[in-house]
């Protein structure tokens, strides 16, 4: 009661804090400090979170950019594929590096023909082969056009990934392949903090619930990151937002 200061002010006409406030502040500091100690971090990470996760199961959120009808949101969309390699050794990583290197020219030529891709890179992070790209328009259309142009080449990469054998050759498993790729596209935490609550409500078939209790946010974020281990933080920076790859090419006169 006295801690917010208003009561004190009303009573004594001064803003001096009493000993009760002092104790409260000290307690807050102690709790904050406690969270930084090794034993507590261990308890939180290894006991508390698994217990929470067991008590409140959280669904894995879908990857990729958030659906939007705004034209500006539908260009320069980020795809962050994280694909765990079957062979989790230096040999496995080398095989992945070679699969990209051997097919690089064809993959780049294919991306050129897809027409809607700004950038694409292949990266090995730990035991994952990752493809990070920036594309325009609908995800399914991007991947479908990708299959049509260079599916057979990309199959050599997918073959090295856990579960990849079920979706290749991609030309024979178009729908499955698109769903599989979508499944490996990591969740993009929204730029608006409370949107993660909306995403969770949507995943639980509870759209429109609109519970914006911000005190729940850290706990909910922890539980989500417990399920979605890899995420993109925000949708990323854009130097020239709102323009498609073809518009940039046209502007520079390099053909589209």
């Amino acid at each position, binding site marked *: 009661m006295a801690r917010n200061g208003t009561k004190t002010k009303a009573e004594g006409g001064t803003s001096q804090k009493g000993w009760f406030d002092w104790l409260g502040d000290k307690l807050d500091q102690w709790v904050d400090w406690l969270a930084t100690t090794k034993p507590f971090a261990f308890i939180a990470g290894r006991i508390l979170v698994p217990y929470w996760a067991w008590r409140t199961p959280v669904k894995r959120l879908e990857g990729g950019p958030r*659906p*939007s*009808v705004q*034209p*500006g949101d*539908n*260009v320069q969309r980020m795809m962050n594929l994280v694909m765990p390699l079957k062979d989790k050794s230096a040999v496995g990583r080398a095989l992945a590096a070679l699969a990209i290197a051997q097919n690089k020219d064809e993959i780049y030529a294919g991306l050129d*023909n*897809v*027409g*809607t891709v700004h950038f694409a890179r292949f990266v090995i992070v730990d035991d994952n082969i990752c493809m990070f790209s920036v594309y*325009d*328009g*609908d995800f*399914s*259309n991007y991947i*479908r*056009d990708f*299959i*049509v*142009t260079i599916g057979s080449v990309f199959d050599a990469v997918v073959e090295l990934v856990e579960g990849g054998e079920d979706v290749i050759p991609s*030309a*024979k*498993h*178009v*729908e*499955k392949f*698109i*769903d599989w790729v979508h499944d490996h596209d990591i969740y993009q935490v929204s730029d608006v903090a409370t949107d993660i609550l909306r995403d969770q409500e949507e995943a639980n078939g509870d759209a429109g619930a609109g519970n914006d209790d911000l005190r729940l946010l850290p706990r909910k974020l922890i539980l989500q990151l417990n399920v979605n281990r890899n995420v993109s933080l925000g949708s990323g920076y854009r130097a020239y937002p*709102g*323009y*498609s*790859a*073809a*518009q940039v*090419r*046209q502007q520079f006169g390099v053909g*589209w």
Partner: protein
Amino acid sequence: MSCKFNPADVQGNILRGYRKPRVRYLMLEISDRAAARRWLTAATSGTGGVPQIATESGQRWATKPDTCFNIGLTFEGLRALGTPAASLATFPTEFVQGMNKRAIKLGDAGPSAPENWEQPFNEPARVHLIASIYADDVAQLDRVQHDAVGGQQAFKLLRVRDGWCFDGDYVHFNYQDNISQPRFAEIHDRDSFSDSQPMAPLGTALLGYPTNFEGLKWRIPEPEPLGYNGSFNAFRVLEQDVVGFEEYLTAAATELLEHPKVNELLPPGAEANIQVKEGQRLPRHDALREVIAAAMCGRWRNGVPLALSPDTPNPSPDVSRTKFDYTNFDDDGAARCPYGAHIRRCNPRGGQIVQRVANHSRRLVRRGMPYGPAYVHDPAKPRDPNEPKRGLLGNFIGANLGAQFEAMSCDWLNLGLQDPRITGSNDPLLGANEPETSWFDLPLKSGAPIRLRGLPRFVTTKGGAYTFLPSMAAIRYLGSLTG
């Protein structure tokens, strides 16, 4: 299973239109699974009083039947029939999720959002089967409806919707429609109209055949009798603001009259070339209205394509309505048909597009009929607040909803990704437009176009569902399910 084409296994409304003046849709909820299965079996042979499902023949009708009856099933419908889970898992994601869940991809936001859809599409879990009846008159529709769902236990009739053709295939907004469709080598009518587009492989519309993408086949739902020769349909109830459309043309024409480059768009005296009724000369403002209407569609309202006749709806000699492409330019390189025109956005034919592999790949079979009375524009008459509801009951059919209907809707109809000159704008007729941000370019021969702004949303989605159009073998399979 052999991929040899057996027309008698395919429902009759997929590969060609019946060209009947009336249609009725029955939206049905399965209330008794066993009875619904018996009904399906009966519908394959037309026994027990249930109307027989019309099939393709591949040949010209010897005598055209009075009525044609067909069905489509939603994913919820397949579930309600007790289709095994292993089989349901072989259907494509977009069909499993249903049209409501795919709303953002289709531009169904704001007033078009599914939460604003009309009954029964506001309760998608209850829409199981959509039956269509094509006929010459209402008495025939009533009779077939009675035979199909009168006094039976299988279904609850959720809603009935009727559509009918106006004279000469005109639809609301007063355009001639139903002009160009994919042509199939296997169907007799392929030669009845010429078209510069390549013949559509059967896999454009049917599951189990080569598609527009070489070497690529769509997944066929299992088991085989269920999937082969089936198709998918996006059924849409699209409300059209006919008054708003004509008001926009009037306002835009008024604005154009003041535009410094208007004489380039319509040279003085050229209004004589724009005749709506024979022998009637339009005032300049009214002629400009027609120029704008033609640019927005890509065809003059009488169906003449701008690609072949950019200056007049009455070319002499007459031109084909279907045999044209966007690969031809005038000598000065100007586009005859605006890049953002409705028919060009939705089907860029052989024209240059960003997605180089996608030409001809997103084609759809379209079967639509208007609802509500024909509207006659009278500029002297103020907007009637009780104007009857008007629109289109549309079927957008293809073997792959994701690769055709959705791909066309989300990147081309809206967004305009196929051409950098229109990217960021939506379809002027059907797009999810907001007056604050919308624009549409009228090309000029001298270069920089005239940009029209302030287009509102003329078409609002009022409902719809993704349905599977099963083959006759599939209907027999579903009828024979047990448990």
